[in-house]
């Protein structure tokens, strides 16, 4: 966290005000009105006391002023309430919109840039970080607005009444933000120095609990008590170091305000004694002095909301900076011709610098069952990512039926493919909803056919609720093989020309693997299959096996041919463990 990042994050937060411009305009108006009301109230109150104390006025004589107090207090309360509600609505709008933007950005980025980020962490950005910027709009910005509008208005009112008091206010006011900035910077430096350690210690307890089974298996769990105590104690000490600075900063603020008010009171008092000043003016100034510092103190108290929002904004910006794989809008209405898929001289390098594809050339005929094998890092998965449109090729092109497949055709192309990943995701909902992910309106008969073709129909129909059986979180209650075949049914219901399989049996036991391969066999000739395989036993069925090494094709042929001659395939088969 460099200061520059902070500044960029805060600038970005401020930019979000454009989303709520109409609300912000009304907030400004209300803040200005509140400032005027504060002055008016002080004027009325000073007048009443002055008249009662020194002109001997009774309630009757003061009735107009006393009655005026009522609408003033109602108006001030009502305006404050309206202002708070506007700020709250602004915060709500910003959060909802931001959350939508974040997910839309993920839709454009696709899964590839997310591969190294723990899902939970990313989820926290979309949920918690977005929530954490709320107080910036609900509390911090309104406090800032009041700070910029109300004190100047008060100063304007105080000056004609007593220029000396006005001068005291004017001179001390800039000291407040100055001291705050100085102490704030020190606190920020201190917390940055400690941030790493604090987050380590804060996470320690959680980490120990998470790993209790492991610690227990090694009989280390009771030893850990002492470490928990140590860490908790160190955590407390460091937290207090940071907090003390924060408390000090608000103490300095309060001290400045208190001393200035006392100074105003004493100086006004002596001039009253000497008869150099009217009591009304003196009281008016005294009543306004605390109101002058109040917005400054409130602003200081909201600084933590700002710091937290900035930290959250940094996380959000990181997600929004993920590279987009797809253009914002692609039409699914383009008619793509059916024909052979040609990959020409494809290159791709991972962001870390690892070359994944180095001039891949491959032609796949419609209806062909093509298996792709090779050592890990050969580029097999990268090839699938390209075909799925999750990454764009660095150079080279993919052609379908002789025409280049362009980024703008992505949606249309995806309608032509089905995909079964290593670990398919099942969504909460019924089995039918999961199979019909791509076409939620598919008639029952079609869904049954897809399930049948995937070899999962018998299992589903044996369930008491059949296709309407609800699936638990992450497909709990289903075996790996069943999940995989549900994913296959999902892909087949999409009526694909091409079926892309990414090591679909990698996590299955041998029985489930056989059932899955049997389901594939029935698709023969009807659907083009690109099958990235982990283990070679599953490939007897393939029309053609392609061996990839170092990002290009190094051999190809059917099982018999490849087995019968020495080459990379035989090397793979016989590779020593």
């Amino acid at each position, binding site marked *: 966290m460099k200061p520059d990042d902070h500044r960029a994050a805060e600038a970005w937060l401020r930019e979000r005000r454009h989303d709520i411009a109409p609300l912000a305009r009304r907030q400004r108006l209300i803040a200005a009105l509140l400032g005027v009301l504060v002055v008016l109230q002080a004027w009325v109150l000073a007048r009443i*006391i002055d008249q009662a104390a020194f002109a001997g006025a009774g*309630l009757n004589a003061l009735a107009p002023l006393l009655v005026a107090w009522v609408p003033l207090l109602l108006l001030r309360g009502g305006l404050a*309430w309206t202002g708070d509600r506007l700020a709250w609505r602004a915060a709500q709008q910003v959060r909802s919109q931001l959350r939508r933007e974040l997910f839309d950005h993920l839709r454009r980025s696709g899964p590839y840039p997310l591969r190294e980020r723990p*899902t939970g962490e990313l989820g926290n950005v979309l949920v918690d970080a977005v929530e954490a910027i709320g107080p910036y709009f609900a509390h911090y910005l309104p406090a800032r607005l009041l700070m910029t509008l109300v004190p100047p208005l008060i100063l304007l009112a105080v000056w004609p009444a007593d220029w000396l008091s006005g001068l005291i206010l004017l001179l001390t006011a800039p000291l407040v933000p100055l001291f705050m900035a100085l102490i704030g910077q020190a606190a920020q430096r201190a917390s940055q120095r400690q941030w790493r350690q604090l987050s380590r210690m804060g996470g320690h307890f959680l980490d120990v609990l998470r790993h209790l089974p492991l610690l227990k298996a090694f009989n280390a769990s009771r030893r850990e008590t002492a470490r928990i105590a140590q860490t908790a104690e160190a955590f407390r000490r460091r937290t207090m170091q940071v*907090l003390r600075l924060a408390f000090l900063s608000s*103490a300095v603020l309060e*001290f400045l305000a*208190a001393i200035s008010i006392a100074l105003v009171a004493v100086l006004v008092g002596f001039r009253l004694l000497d008869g150099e000043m009217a009591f009304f003016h003196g009281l008016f100034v005294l009543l306004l002095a605390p109101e002058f510092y109040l917005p400054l103190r409130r602003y200081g108290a909201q600084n933590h909301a700002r710091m937290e929002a900035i930290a959250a904004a940094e996380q959000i910006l990181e997600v929004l900076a993920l590279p987009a794989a797809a253009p914002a809008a692609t039409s699914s209405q383009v008619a793509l011709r059916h024909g052979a898929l040609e990959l020409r001289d494809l290159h791709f390098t991972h962001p870390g610098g690892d070359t994944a594809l180095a001039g891949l050339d491959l032609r796949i005929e419609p209806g062909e069952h093509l298996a792709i094998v090779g050592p890990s890092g050969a580029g097999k998965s990268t090839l699938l990512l390209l075909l799925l449109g999750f990454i764009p090729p660095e150079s080279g092109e993919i052609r379908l039926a002789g025409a280049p497949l362009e980024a703008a055709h992505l949606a249309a192309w995806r309608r032509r493919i089905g995909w079964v990943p290593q670990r398919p995701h099942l969504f909460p909902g019924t089995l039918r909803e999961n199979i019909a992910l791509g076409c*939620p309106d598919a008639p029952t008969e079609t869904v049954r056919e897809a399930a049948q073709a995937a070899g999962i129909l018998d299992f589903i129909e044996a369930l008491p609720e059949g296709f309407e059986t609800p699936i638990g979180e992450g497909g709990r209650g289903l075996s790996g093989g069943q999940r995989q075949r549900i994913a296959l049914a999902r892909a087949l219901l999409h009526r694909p020309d091409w079926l892309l399989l990414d090591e679909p049996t990698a996590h299955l036991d041998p029985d489930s693997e056989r059932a899955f391969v049997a389901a594939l066999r029935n698709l023969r000739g009807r659907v083009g299959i690109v099958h990235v395989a982990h283990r070679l036993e599953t490939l007897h069925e393939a029309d053609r096996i392609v061996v990839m090494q170092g990002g290009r094709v190094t051999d190809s042929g059917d099982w018999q041919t490849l087995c019968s001659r020495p080459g990379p395939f035989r090397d793979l088969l016989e590779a020593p463990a």
Partner: protein
Amino acid sequence: MIRHLWPLYRPHLGWLLGGAALGLLTLLANVGLLALSGWFLTAMAAAGLGGAAINYFTPAAIIRGLAMLRTAGRYGERVITHEATFRLIAQLRVWLYERLEPLAPAALEDQHSGELLNRLQKDIDRLDAIWLRILMPMLIATVAVTLFTLFAARTSGLLALVLLALLLTGGLLLPLWVARRSRLAGPALVARTGQLRARVIDGIEGLGELLVFGADARQAETIAHVDQALRETQSRLEGPRLLVDAVQGMLAQAAVLAALLIAIPLLRAGEIAPPELAMLVLFALAVFEAVTPLPAAFGQIAETAEAARRLFALAEREPPIHEPAQPRPLPPPGAIRFEGVSLHYAPELPPALHEIDLTLPVGSLTLVRGESGAGKSSLIHLLLRFREPSAGRITHAGIDLREHAAEDWRTRIALVSQHTELIAGTLRENLLLGRPDADTRQLDAACEQARILDFVRSLPDGYDTWIGETGMRLSGGQARRIAIARALLRDAPILLLDEPTEGLDLATEREVIAALRPLLEGRTVLLVSHRALDLGTPDQVLTLTAGRLRQTPHPGNTP
């Protein structure tokens, strides 16, 4: 709940009350400052007009003194109460850990997902509100309101009553109303946030499928929909709070009006002097500071009590195993035998293990295959004595495991598991779990055997490299080899391998298997995996299906 909280709070009571006293002093200084300033100004003006002498040194000095007292008091109160509260929270962590440790992992299984552990963490942190944001403001407000009422009563009983009524409205009635509203909406807020998180996580984990199958726009709509529901719940909570804030401000202004209406006739009647009028009016305006924090305080009661309730309910659970009163010493290594072992997690669920019979002879390699959910982890947990069989028994050298102290028994076992089981800490700390007293030479030897030594040596900080969430991220293969080195250091006669290569690619799997080989030498090994691993020919191969174990006829001839 108070039964648990009182012993935790008692040692810190002095500091907590001292902090509250400072808080009260600050509040009094604040009110005094404003009231006295009003009195001082009016008195000075009266003296100026009347040409009378006045001792202005004392009030001027008091005004300056109160200004400083206010500042110092606030600072001292914050430091002291936070210090005491954080000490208490630190102790609470230890207290809670000591209670959770015997429960793990069996009685904490439903807490296993990260979300629930996160909640636990937040619940602990939330307990700082008990004193700082609930009890202390209430205590200060009670004392202050009493003092303020008594002070007003010196001048006018009516004024005292009106002020008290306004303060009670702003400090008790309105906060109670807010509290009731938040008690209703609070649980809904938790539920909505959970739903939103679930939908978002779904959208991220299933992003590939959503895009390929053209369902991403629908998911975005679903998320927006849940987001909207969350917004509405939040607004139901926030609405009353905003209203009460505004109403409190108006009550303070109303108190000013009341003071004017009551004090002006008193002034006319000659019962009070002009300076007292100004003092009373400013006093009435200032006293509301005492009740400003109360709506928030009442609003937090339900949430905080719920957090405390969850924590203490967790701490009071029954431990899953019972230690023998007179533990038997361990015999020399012998065969391990499962005799009709069944395991039920809950009466309404099918058994996780059903009448298992299994013998692990000394020095043998046993492979148990089965899909996830077939009961493999239950088998491991029983061997580690994390749980006790619901029926049947497990013996070692003929002695029921239940007759040994669990920790004694576990000295015989080393574990390498599929989960990335590295704790946040240094590499050395992770390795020393295996043998706390190991020296660097022994660490080197174990890492050498686990084929990870070169990697460790390539790190600038070597064994002192920090790993885990906030440290360096290790690859799957590296983490697994560290776990193997740890098991080597453990040097126990029984080795449990729980899917040791799960989630690794082919090449890494081979490296890990090569690293595992030296670990197998001369040990009784139970390998649990969904498929055969190239770890040499097992002496027996069994398949676990839905909690039932069957022998696979031809060991060694596995697909």
